[in-house]
């Protein structure tokens, strides 16, 4: 089996290496990806269309907003699947654990975490809200926010973290994020545009169509941030306790 796998992998490798000589060299400005009309269109027009300096955010949340919406739904479904598969198993299943959790939360660790968790959360909010003009956005900010709750669970225990962010509320918040995203899309649908065509939001808000797209992108990123924060914590809580939500890592 291993020998057959090795030969198969080697054959694929030879084919790919043979194809490599046709690809552009490193940093070639004339490479097909750089000279395509799509790339130059986005470079020339994102600033005019949406006033967003970060082109990646503009493409992610506006031009390809539909894609990002269902990406958020995929994150939500992944969290839901992990939770329900682990929760639905036999109730009194016993596993041999390598580690036994039997300790008091360490004084130095908990006090350090008490100091740095607010800083992490403010940084996460900054990344989320500043995703237009600097690298960042909903996914990154949401993951950083979820990581702060995971840090609480790691340094005290899972019960302390679940007291702050119960697992049922995780899924409520995650669904709320998708509702925010789809709601902004539906609002622009009802105002006469297409789904997720944010420029039509300028009819009810006192801004120009370009600034309407700018601010709708912020709203969409907040929705993504809600979903990702909640799902990251729910994933950790489910996986570290084998779905039982007791005696975590």
């Amino acid at each position, binding site marked *: 089996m291993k020998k057959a*796998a*090795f030969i*198969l992998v080697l054959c694929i490798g030879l084919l790919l290496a043979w194809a*490599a000589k046709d690809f552009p060299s*490193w940093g070639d400005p004339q490479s097909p990806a*750089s000279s395509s009309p799509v790339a130059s269109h986005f470079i020339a027009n994102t600033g005019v269309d949406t006033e967003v300096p970060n082109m990646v955010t503009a493409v992610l949340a506006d031009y390809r907003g539909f894609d990002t919406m269902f990406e958020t739904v995929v994150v939500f479904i992944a969290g839901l699947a992990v939770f329900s598969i682990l929760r639905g198993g036999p109730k009194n299943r016993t596993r041999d654990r390598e580690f036994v959790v039997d300790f008091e939360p360490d004084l130095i660790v908990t006090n350090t975490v008490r100091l740095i968790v607010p800083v992490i959360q403010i940084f996460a909010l900054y990344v989320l809200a500043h995703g237009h003009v600097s690298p960042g956005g909903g996914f990154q900010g949401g993951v950083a926010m979820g990581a702060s709750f995971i840090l609480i669970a790691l340094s005290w225990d899972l019960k302390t973290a679940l007291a702050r962010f119960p697992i049922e509320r995780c899924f409520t918040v995650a669904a709320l994020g998708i509702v925010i995203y789809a709601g902004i899309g539906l609002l622009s649908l009802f105002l006469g545009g297409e789904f997720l065509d944010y420029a039509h939001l300028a009819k009810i808000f006192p801004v120009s169509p370009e600034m309407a797209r700018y601010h709708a992108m912020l709203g969409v990123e907040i929705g993504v941030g809600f979903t990702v924060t909640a799902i990251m914590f729910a994933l950790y809580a489910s996986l570290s306790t084998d779905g039982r939500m007791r005696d975590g890592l």
Partner: protein
Amino acid sequence: MFEDGSIFNQLLVERLNYFIYVVLLLIGLWAMIAKNNLIKKLIGMSIFQTAIILFYVSIGVKEGATIPIYLPEHDPHGSHAQLDSNHTELLSHGA
């Protein structure tokens, strides 16, 4: 062996980055096929997918380019443009 135009020179000197992507992809593929442990298979899948994303991103690299964020002086509607219009207004007021 490494003279200009030979296949080794093409692969290991000029196109070293593609060679590395192929090697990473093969490591991931081999781990997915041959390893029995599911965590190892998962790590192999991550290596496989990062190799592919690395390939996609690296053909868009341009020599001497900036990151894809407008500088104020490049942005047609950014702060620099507003400064410019204020400046011309001041100039016209002055005149």
